[in-house]
């Protein structure tokens, strides 16, 4: 863990009851004890330890990494809170770290705001905070400020987490969906749809024993080596909700280009394919939490692919398609069967088909 030794300014509080009650949100000693015992203990770092109303960062210190600040926020309401391959804490760190990283930023600091339903066990809260701390260390970021609210039973589903992230973009890194050009390659860093399938499987209401684990992982390392290998990379996005299909549509729309992908080379785990077959779902729309879609100019595509494959989180990276001549804004797929179909945006949520 990222333990920065720093003399605590005061003695650290401790929670002695098994579950969170409304008293822990009341602003008094119970709340301070909860914050100390659960969050400060796990996230321990000098910026947080002072528990001031805001964390303050040195501008000169930030400026050594680049010339622009990147700033993003995301809320996490996943059900179930713990799933194969991760939990809401890991997800809350990865999600925001990855949003910063795909924008070309080096992720540095996170905030953590937690809304807790009364009755949640304090031990469980500690487990989630530890998971956040471990993931933050993996991602090289510090959680430097936060907030805790406790709400009545039924007002939220056990726990919601919001993380906000600050990062710095190195000089010269220019990324944008509108920069995609004819001939550019479309890369992904591995097997698609694992997170979506893992969550659906973990909900347990479809009587399917799925061994699928979420791909939830912080991608700043993979992205740093990708930026290095392909300096003229046009754009990256993490295909979370809505999956790869949605991201490709956003790119095609923004750049007013057509994109075609090839089903035969799109990396999918057999378990995810089987899962989708049974439920009538399309893996292209399943969420990912450790994947990026990258648009790379053709002369840098091979080296980008090599750089991805050299990284532990990109072993199964693939070039799945390219920017082609065609109706602007349209995404198509060459199917495994030899046909072509349109890959459109989803209208709502994917719903399993009746038969």
């Amino acid at each position, binding site marked *: 863990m990222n333990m920065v030794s720093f003399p605590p300014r005061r003695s650290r509080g401790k929670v002695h009851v098994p579950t969170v009650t409304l008293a822990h949100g009341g602003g008094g000693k119970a709340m301070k004890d909860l914050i100390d015992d659960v969050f400060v203990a796990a996230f321990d770092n000098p910026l947080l330890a002072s528990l001031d109303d805001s964390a303050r960062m040195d501008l000169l210190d930030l400026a050594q990494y680049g010339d622009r600040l990147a700033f993003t926020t995301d809320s996490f309401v996943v059900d179930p809170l713990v799933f194969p391959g991760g939990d809401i804490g890991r997800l809350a760190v990865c999600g925001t770290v990855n949003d910063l990283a795909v924008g070309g930023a080096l992720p540095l600091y996170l905030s953590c705001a937690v809304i807790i339903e009364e009755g949640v066990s304090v031990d469980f809260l500690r487990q989630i905070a530890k998971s956040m701390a471990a993931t933050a260390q993996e991602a090289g970021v510090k959680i430097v400020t936060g907030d805790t609210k406790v709400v009545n039973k039924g007002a939220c589903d056990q726990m919601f987490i919001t993380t906000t992230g600050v990062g710095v973009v190195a000089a010269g890194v220019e990324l944008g969906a509108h920069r995609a050009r004819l001939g550019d390659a479309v890369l992904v860093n591995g097997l698609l749809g694992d997170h979506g399938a893992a969550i659906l499987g973990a909900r347990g*209401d*479809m*009587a399917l024993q799925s061994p699928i684990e979420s791909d939830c992982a912080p991608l700043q390392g993979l992205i740093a080596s990708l930026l290095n290998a392909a300096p003229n990379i046009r754009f990256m996005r993490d295909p979370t909700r809505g999956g790869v299909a949605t991201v490709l549509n956003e790119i095609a729309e923004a750049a007013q280009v057509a994109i075609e992908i090839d089903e035969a080379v799109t990396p999918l785990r*057999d378990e995810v*394919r*089987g899962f989708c*077959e049974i*439920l*009538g779902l*399309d893996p292209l729309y399943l969420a990912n939490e450790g994947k990026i879609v990258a648009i790379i100019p053709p002369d840098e595509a091979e080296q980008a692919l090599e750089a991805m494959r050299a990284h532990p989180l990109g072993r199964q990276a693939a070039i799945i398609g390219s920017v082609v001549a065609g*109706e602007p804004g*349209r995404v*198509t*797929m*060459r*199917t*495994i*069967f*030899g*046909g*072509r*179909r*349109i890959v*459109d945006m989803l*209208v*709502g949520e994917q*719903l*399993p*088909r*009746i*038969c």
Partner: protein
Amino acid sequence: MRYVDEFRDRAKADVLVKEIERLLARIGRDESRPLQIMEVCGGHTHSIFRYGVEGMLPKSIELVHGPGCPVCVLPMGRVDDCVAIAERPEVIFTTFGDAMRVPGSRKSLLQAKADGCDVRMVYSPMDALALARKNPAREVVFFGIGFETTMPSTALTVLQAEREGIKNFSIFCNHITIVPTIKAILDSPDLRLDGFLGPGHVSMVIGDAPYEFIARYYKKPMVIAGFEPLDILQSIWMLLRQIDEGRCEIENQYARVAPAGGNAVALQAVAQVYELREFFEWRGLGSIDHSGVKVRDAYAGFDAERKYAVPNARIADPKACQCGEVLKGVIKPWQCKVFGRACTPETPLGALMVSSEGACAAYYQYGGIKRDRDDEASAA
């Protein structure tokens, strides 16, 4: 993936497409007078779009996407009835996922859920029965929907509930039957179809004998087809061979799953629990005689329709909708006046825009490619 990839083999597809082209040339059909084949089942429509089968076929074949999507053909009044049942505080209303979005005249089940109704998505009627066991103080209603494919599973669930003496479980029965529907299409004066791909999963239950009248009286060939893209291509090829040889028969391409005699146990359960209705209302097609089933008197306690006295109002399809003409192959989805304008998957007016298996929604979402080609051709 074994037993799946074999049925998506590109090399075999190429061979079949060449054979189909050769047969079409012999039959003497071309673009100006394309051969029209209807796939009755929504599952086929889905596969055809999912794998781009339509675009691989020569333009002298036109696939007409039939009425076999039970979600699409559900009339608005029945959705209103669902919502009325779901709004009762004691009810847990359970449904297959894709029926959640079907619009009623007031709201869909998805909206009803957002407004506080206890609507839950299940994957089988048995899951709904399990909910009834777990919640003895609540009334669990399952939205029974689908053709003969899903009918046995709801019938068996009712029989199971009876055996266990479960009193807080009922079915809102909207099951429909395929044969009267095909007959209604065959009887329509503007029909232009040359043959049918039969719904394989319905035949898994009812066998192939119930279709004999199509060949005998209407002189149209049918091939009962599986749902993988190679199944579909092979079935089209089998149909063309019949046409080329002047035959008119009910053939079974899907014999690996659908035996000629169907499934006697399933049919027995269906006959025990359900009986034919005099008529049933279809979205897009209107009222069709004997095209639906209801729960028999002996199982009245499991019939939500009797338990809750649903409003059962008839709500006419919007006037602008041309679903009926699309279903019969008279016009293509994009030739409908409201396609993609007033009628989209977000705000469906007509039945065929509702589910991803509906012809219009499938064109809107996946299609376009062959359509573009047609547009380009007509512009040139």
